[in-house]
């Protein structure tokens, strides 16, 4: 969770309560490093007073939003346990007896009509499919395994760790002083194996993934350390001291699950009286922790444009402001998605030239505070 999302949550009047341990700020660092070399990159705010980002468990956010929705019950009606079976789209011209709005038919037979339908129904969005919006997508042949990790010993848990293994990145995100969240992206087969392992073996494999150096090749190590020396001559003050990731002792009961990964992007986010937000419009690899944030950014943008349109007495389903939403969000989301996809591909290989390339790249970026500031600023937008 970064920057503007906190703003947009607070604009909606939602309070995410700081229960003991449930909202962990990452104060200082985001440490990312390569399994095939020693290269690492750290992202930190110069001024450690400012928190860089927050990790908030999904069910906390959902609980906070539900509470806020209850407060707005005279303006917002939530119909739980409902399923849509059919959408009827408005014709582009007025026809006798036809309603010019979107009609939504529910499983219980009820029909609703709306001026604007917002599709927030995830990567396999029915709204998107029924509207016939073409999507560029591919599967990554990877699944992510997630779990709640119990750390070996309580620590000042304010660092997020991510290591790029040849099979995919493994990340540990702090939840509290004693717990972290695991996101391990790997091949489908490996993910299934991980799910089958008993707790002890699973914990061992996590620790090995973070600590082992078996993927280092001599050539890469030499090249890497030479480059690092060269850099330290040019920019002696840059770079940061290496910290060590915490080791894991156990996992939360029943917290181990897996889900397939893919990339998807809807070529259009809007149609007449329809708008897509969140994963329905775009789906990314979890390696940059940006998927949810892109969605929150969509929400902030669309809410702002809709409230402006309402203040101008506009029909909320009109194309003009929907087009503005699409343009603004595509301009922001596409570069981010391209970058994440590129990172994923870059780090999916053991091949020495690629490893050397990314080693240099990572080390160089690490010593350039201006570049890192740019990356962080972009992710916070």
């Amino acid at each position, binding site marked *: 969770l970064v920057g503007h999302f906190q703003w947009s949550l607070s604009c909606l009047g939602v309070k995410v309560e700081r229960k003991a341990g449930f909202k962990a700020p990452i104060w200082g660092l985001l440490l990312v490093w390569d399994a095939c070399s020693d290269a690492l990159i750290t992202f930190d705010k110069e001024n450690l007073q400012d928190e860089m980002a927050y990790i908030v468990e999904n069910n906390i956010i959902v609980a906070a939003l539900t509470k806020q929705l209850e407060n707005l019950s005279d303006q917002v009606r939530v119909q739980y346990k409902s399923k849509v079976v059919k959408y009827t789209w408005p014709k582009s*011209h007025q026809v*006798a007896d036809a309603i010019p709005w979107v009609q939504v038919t529910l499983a219980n037979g009820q029909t609703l009509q709306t001026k604007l339908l917002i599709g927030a129904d995830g990567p396999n969005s029915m709204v998107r499919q029924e509207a016939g919006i073409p999507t560029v997508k591919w599967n990554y042949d990877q699944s992510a395994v997630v779990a709640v990790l119990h750390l070996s010993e309580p620590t000042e848990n304010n660092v997020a760790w991510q290591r790029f293994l040849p099979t995919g990145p493994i990340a540990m995100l702090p939840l509290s002083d004693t717990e972290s969240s695991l996101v391990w992206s790997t091949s489908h087969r490996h993910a299934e194996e991980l799910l089958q392992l008993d707790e002890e073996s699973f914990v061992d494999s996590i620790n090995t993934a973070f600590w082992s150096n078996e993927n280092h090749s001599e050539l890469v190590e030499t090249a890497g350390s030479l480059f690092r020396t060269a850099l330290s001559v040019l920019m002696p003050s840059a770079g940061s001291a290496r910290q060590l990731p915490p080791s894991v002792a156990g996992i939360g009961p029943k917290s181990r699950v897996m889900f397939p990964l893919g990339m998807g992007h809807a070529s259009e986010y809007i149609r007449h009286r329809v708008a897509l937000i969140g994963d329905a419009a775009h789906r990314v690899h979890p390696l940059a922790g940006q998927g949810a944030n892109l969605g929150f950014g969509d929400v902030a943008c669309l809410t702002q444009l809709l409230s402006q349109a*309402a*203040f*101008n*007495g*506009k029909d909320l389903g009109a194309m003009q402001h929907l087009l503005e939403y699409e343009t603004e969000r595509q301009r922001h989301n596409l570069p981010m998605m391209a970058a994440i996809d590129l990172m994923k591909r870059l780090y999916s290989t053991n091949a020495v030239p690629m490893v050397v390339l990314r080693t240099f790249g990572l080390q160089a970026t690490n010593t350039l505070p201006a570049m890192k500031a740019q990356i962080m600023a972009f992710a916070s937008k």
Partner: protein
Amino acid sequence: MNTPKLCALTAPITTVDPNEVKRFQLLANKWWNEQGDFAALHSMNDLRVPFIRDNLLNAHGGRRPGKPLAGLRILDVGCGGGLLTEPLGRLGADVLGIDPVADSIGTAEVHAWHDPDLRGNVRYRAITLEELSEKGGQGAGQFDAVVASEVVEHLADLETFTLCCNQVLKPGGSLFITTINKTQLSYALAIVAAEEVLRIVPSGTHDWDKFVSPMELERLLESNGFHVESIRGMLYNPLSGAWSWTESTSINYALHAVKLEEEPNLDEDDPEDPTVIVAQAKARRWYN
């Protein structure tokens, strides 16, 4: 009959024959196509709705949140298919749209009845301003605001128009006009470029002789019981299809005038007449 469903949903057009309704729907597709013949009028709402809304909010203060114009009665003269009438209605005002062209009124009604936000407070009548303002024509001194957008450049008799506006407005009420200046530039752009070359507006829509300059309009209004509060230039960009405010009023401009509060003539009126006594008391309060 194949129209019972239609009749059940909308009172105003129960007496209209179904073929008429079909015709209105065809016309509605023309009027209400945001990228069609009337695209420039649709995008002009981005300027004229805030212009009307903000000036009325200044005069009357904020109303219910979400309905900034609630409680205000507005007359939209020359409303056409209702392009400006509907947004004003959505902002909470009680709007009456009038147009001498019955087809346009039919179109406007057909378009508006779908929207529950509009059914209660937007009405249309195929009638002229003169007819409405005649005593007994239910128009006298009733409206908080009169909007005449892209209308005066089509009128032969501006003096009568001004008098009628004065007649239907409450004292202190607002008059909003958007129109085209009478300049060489406006001839080049509004007639030649817009109508003949770029076809932004259908050919023959405008007659340059009927254009009126802001100075002329101001003079006319001020000598007929109005005070002109502001005049702003508007500029259309044919590439982006968007309007913007501009310094120069050489082509399009918007004007806001206010009807002066009545000043009763203390010499001529019968001092026994209770209405005069009340009026005099009011006048004294106003001037103190």
